[in-house]
């Protein structure tokens, strides 16, 4: 890509970039100061409680360590008026900053009778954590928040290093007076300060650009200067605004927002400043008609495919779930945690008191199962389809059109209906397949009780549904083989098998390879069959990657984790696509 920075474009880019970056920072600062005046809100309470619980995890609720941790926490968060740490098995108050817990009642001590509600709440949270961990059902909230007129109470469980819940923290947060209260005043408005910073940076840039002739002739240097000024302005303004925020939680939130703004602003600066924007504009004008035709489809795709995809990428770095999607993603940011959890779950076989069990929810089990599922299905589809095509293709094969019409039926049927029919046929009591087994003297099988038999059910369903496609493709390809090839081979004395190997198979290849590729992708993503026939039973062992992603999202409601899971599947599909593309050169000449 050719870059064409000019002084004018750079100045415009700097101005636009700074407007975005400083605008975001000023907005963040304004929000923080508003919050500082009005007191903390419920969502802050949750974040604070999580933070304290996390910090206490390492202390093991040892009173001295816990007290130290609590003191540090109280200093960082002036908005917290009281914090208490409970040891649940010991029924003890480990540490406390509550005004009442001094002298006689100073921590550590046993809990009093009047504190039983606290203890009960802690036990409730512990039960919620344990039931959520066991999975299944709607997740229960692990944090309890009670919002009053002047204060917010929040409780969160504290886990030990091994994940067992051993305690709970209780925080009281002061809520400021309502929105009617006049602002404290004094500090300059962040908006004004941002505007001043912007003007200063822009002025410096113009002065340097116009005043120093050596710079004006060297757009590369000028571009460097613009970037430097941009970063300096953002850093200066950010540092100034952050210094004015006392509460650590709010400061952190401000920094994250400002960082996002800075990244976006820098991108804008480079886009406009380096002439990419101008070129895009020119191309748009020159190819007006073409873009006019593409725009409706592209816009729809942009809004409903590419933006959601990008949003999914962002979500995959968060711990978004059903309770917190209304919060900004910067609040839920967990970095690569989700990916680490998915890919790091390498303990496929677990030791339990009942002996060794395979962890069916492990990503690697599901991937392995998906691969086996795809390979066996495509193998069945290709071999049955090819076999039938070869038979039907024989010259003068009686009733061929009738056979073809009947054998193509499974493809024509909607696959969700097929799936539900087969599920009924595999019913353990009334299903016709168990009746058939009993005719031959066998015992009825509970199909969905073991992974292997459940696999048989989904495999037969999908095999039934997928062979017609291969049969039709093979029949079409067989018809296009010129008959004189075989004649020539016969004249040369080639046997039937030799003809098959040297003529039929090579001629089938150009049609079969893409058909196999497409059916690999279909089978890999064959959601309906798995979801409707076996439903992943038993214990998620017959889940394929896409159904697993769906269940994480809509049965466990872990949106962030599900988004990360989907991203991993995207990458697998993408790698497969790139590989098959290289193999077949499918996209040549478009």
């Amino acid at each position: 890509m050719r870059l064409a920075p000019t002084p004018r474009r750079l100045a415009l880019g700097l101005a636009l970039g700074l407007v975005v970056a400083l605008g975001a920072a000023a907005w963040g600062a304004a929000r923080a100061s508003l919050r500082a005046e009005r007191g903390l809100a419920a969502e802050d309470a949750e974040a604070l409680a999580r933070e304290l619980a996390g910090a206490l995890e390492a202390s093991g609720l040892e009173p001295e360590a816990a007290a130290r941790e609590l003191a540090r926490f109280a200093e960082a968060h002036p908005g917290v008026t009281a914090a208490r740490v409970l040891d649940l098995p010991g029924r003890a108050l480990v540490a406390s900053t509550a005004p009442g817990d001094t002298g006689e009642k100073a921590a550590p001590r046993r809990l009093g009778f009047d504190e039983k509600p606290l203890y009960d709440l802690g036990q409730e949270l512990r039960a919620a954590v344990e039931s959520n961990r066991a999975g299944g059902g709607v997740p229960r909230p692990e944090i309890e928040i009670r919002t009053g007129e002047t204060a917010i109470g929040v409780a969160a469980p504290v886990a030990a290093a091994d994940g067992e819940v051993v305690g709970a923290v209780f925080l009281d947060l002061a809520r400021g007076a309502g929105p009617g209260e006049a602002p404290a005043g004094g500090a300059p408005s962040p908006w004004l300060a941002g505007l001043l910073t912007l003007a200063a940076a822009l002025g410096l840039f113009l002065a340097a650009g116009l005043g120093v002739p050596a710079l004006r002739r060297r757009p590369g240097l000028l571009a460097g200067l613009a970037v430097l000024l941009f970063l300096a302005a953002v850093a200066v303004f950010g540092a100034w605004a952050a210094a004015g925020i006392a509460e650590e939680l709010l400061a952190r939130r401000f920094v994250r927002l400002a960082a996002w703004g800075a990244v976006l602003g820098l991108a804008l600066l480079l886009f406009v400043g380096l002439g990419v924007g101008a070129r895009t504009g020119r191309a748009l004008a020159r190819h007006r008609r073409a873009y006019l035709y593409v725009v409706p489809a592209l816009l729809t795709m942009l809004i409903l495919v590419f933006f959601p995809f990008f949003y999914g990428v962002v979500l995959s770095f968060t711990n978004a779930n059903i309770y917190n999607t209304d919060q900004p993603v910067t609040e839920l940011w967990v970095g690569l945690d989700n990916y680490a959890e998915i890919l790091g779950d390498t303990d496929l076989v677990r030791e339990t008191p009942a002996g060794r069990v395979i962890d069916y929810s492990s990503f690697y089990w599901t991937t392995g199962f998906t691969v086996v599922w795809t390979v066996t299905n495509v193998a069945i589809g290709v071999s049955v389809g090819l076999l039938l095509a070869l038979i039907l293709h024989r010259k003068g094969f009686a009733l061929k059109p009738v056979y073809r019409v009947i054998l193509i039926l499974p493809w024509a049927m909607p696959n969700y209906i097929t799936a539900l029919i087969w599920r009924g046929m595999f019913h353990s009591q009334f299903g016709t397949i168990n009746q058939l087994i009993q005719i031959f003297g066998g015992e009825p099988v509970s199909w969905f009780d073991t992974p292997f038999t459940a696999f048989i059910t989904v495999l037969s369903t999908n095999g039934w549904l997928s062979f017609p496609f291969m049969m039709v493709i093979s029949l079409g390809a067989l018809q296009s083989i010129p008959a004189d090839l075989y004649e020539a081979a016969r004249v040369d004395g080639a046997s039937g098998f030799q003809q098959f190997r040297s003529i039929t198979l090579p001629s089938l290849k150009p049609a079969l390879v893409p058909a196999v590729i497409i059916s690999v992708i279909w089978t890999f993503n064959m959601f309906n069959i798995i979801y409707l026939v076996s439903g992943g039973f038993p214990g998620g062992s017959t889940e394929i990657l896409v159904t697993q992603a769906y269940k994480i999202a809509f049965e466990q409601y872990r949106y962030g984790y599900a988004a990360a899971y989907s991203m991993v599947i995207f990458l697998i599909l993408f790698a497969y696509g790139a590989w098959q593309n290289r193999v077949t050169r499918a996209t040549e000449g478009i």
Partner: protein
Amino acid sequence: MTKKTLRRTIGRALGRLPLHLLVLFFVVITLYPILWVVTIALSGQQSLAYVDLPPDPTLLDRLRAITPWPRTISFENFRSVWTDQPFGRWVLNSAIVAGATTVVGVFLASTAGYAFSRFRFPGRRAGLMSFLVAQMFPGVLMLVPLYIILVQWLGLGSTWIGLILIYATIAIPFCVWMLKGYFDTIPKELEESALIDGASAAQVFLRIVLPLAKPAVAVTALFSFLTGWNEFILAATFMDEELLYTAPVGLRFFVAGYSQQWGYFAAGSILVSIPVVALFYVLQKYLISGLTAGAVKG
């Protein structure tokens, strides 16, 4: 017919008997589930077991139990699924959603396909490739962000608009490639001469190119319709209200969980499948060539 050729014909037929038996075996496997569903639909009851087995069944009893042949013919299930159950409403919902998907999909795909076929512009290759890539990825993977955006932000849960838009985008990539390939085969000279005769660009597209591409437009329309008519999981996730279910979600509703209304399910399935299967047989040639062309040629 001479004796010799007669003998040869008979000989060949006998020689092919094993092959016919093999094909017949697959024909039985293919037809069995379908006949089974028809039998349940015609049995007039809800149970999976349309024959009551005696406590100590003989071989004959068991054989009868698995033979998919209706002993009594009753249209009670068909009548009742239509009148006592909201199935008619669900079919209507499906028809609305699939019909709107068709209109939106054909409009978006024909304009985009035309641009990709006729114009050379920056981003053309990237655009085409992005459609190809988008086709590879199943909608389920986009479900989480789409759910949050459409349901939680825009409040389009349990509405038709959300579902129609999603279905249209699912269908667009295939349709764009299909139509682009077809437009490529229409000679450019036709349009050029029309332009010289004073037609506007829009007239060229609407009056000349689109009518010439009728077969391809028909296939894209069918494909978009089938996408909307047959889709299950997105509809199941987005539609919470029972009255807004589409037919697939409704059919599942009959037999999901502890509900065992197999009679309704069977009758409904047959009603829903017949138009789809008929359409499939009419247009299978185009669908197949479209699918493989998309994969071969890219």
